[in-house]
């Protein structure tokens, strides 16, 4: 440290943030150079003034107001959830005879239909490739594939004839 960079270290010296070595050379400069002393004194006075500023304290109602604000937030949060619940799942949905009876009937019909389909002839449920599916299949084959397909048929024919 020298006279040129002395000023950069003034705050760190005041805040006790200099290394032992730097502190020593700072103090040497402070003793030998009156201009350095002046810079240091000016800064030191300012730092004392700033740190002696009275600290602000929150007033007595701060926590009360904050907790009230959080209570309101929590209440509104809970009420949104409960409103949604009420909308989607009314508490006494099964207690209302009309709704309860309708749901039960619907369930019975669905179960009856499913069990009937699984025990009866499955022919109605078996899917057979239709003409339209063939069309889709062939339309997806490009010209080279078609030629290859025809060649394969020709070769197969030959084999059959040879056999």
């Amino acid at each position, binding site marked *: 440290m020298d006279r040129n960079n002395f000023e950069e270290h003034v*705050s760190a010296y005041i805040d006790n943030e200099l290394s032992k070595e730097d502190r020593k050379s700072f103090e040497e400069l402070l003793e030998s150079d009156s201009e350095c002393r002046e810079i240091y004194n000016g800064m030191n006075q300012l730092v004392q003034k*700033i740190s002696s*500023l009275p*600290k602000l304290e929150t007033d007595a109602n701060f926590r009360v107001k904050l907790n009230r604000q959080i209570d309101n*937030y929590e209440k509104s949060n809970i009420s949104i959830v409960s409103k949604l619940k009420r909308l989607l799942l009314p508490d006494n949905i099964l207690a209302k005879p009309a709704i309860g009876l309708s749901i039960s009937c619907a369930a019975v019909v669905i179960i009856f239909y499913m069990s009937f389909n699984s025990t009866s002839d499955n022919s109605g449920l078996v899917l057979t490739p239709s003409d339209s599916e063939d069309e889709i299949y062939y339309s997806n084959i490009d010209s080279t594939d078609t030629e290859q397909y025809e060649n394969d048929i020709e070769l197969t024919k030959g084999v059959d004839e040879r056999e």
Partner: protein
Amino acid sequence: MRKDYSKYEDEELIKIVQKGDRNAFNELVVRYESKILNFINGYMNNFEMSQDLAQDTFYKIWKNADKYQPIAKFKTWAYTIAKNCALTEYRKIKRRKTYAFSQLSRDDHEFTLERLQGEENRELSNDSETVQQIRWAISQLPGDFREIIILKDIQEHSYDEISSITGLALGTVKSRINRGRQKIKEIIEQNRRDS
């Protein structure tokens, strides 16, 4: 029985807050209410407004507790929220002032400017060079310096702590503290010359 949270670390407390524990949250409020208030006041230089913003900061901490990640210190996270609250309000006020000012005629501009400057200077000279003047000078610092000066000289954090709160390198913290204090001196001297 109510738990005694006073021996818990901040990071342990916020984890408990994440489960919805209000007592753990209140312990954090007790620890930080004054620090956050003073930190915000460094930006606003207005007690009432700063207190409202401090309340807002804690409200946001409660609402967003689940977003806190233990990779950062709670202190860093809380100050970041406080800083955002303060800056948002600070910009709003600035915009409002600019808008209101732009609505005046040219004569009004000159009158208002003189009046405002006169009032400000009177206010400072009444309390000559003390509390009000220094607070005002701090609030006039450019943002980067202001934050560091508040953390060092008002909150009394060490250089290491400031570095961890702000995410700045130790060398940057050191030079900003020094330059920030020099700037405060300059602002006070400039104000004295102007008045």
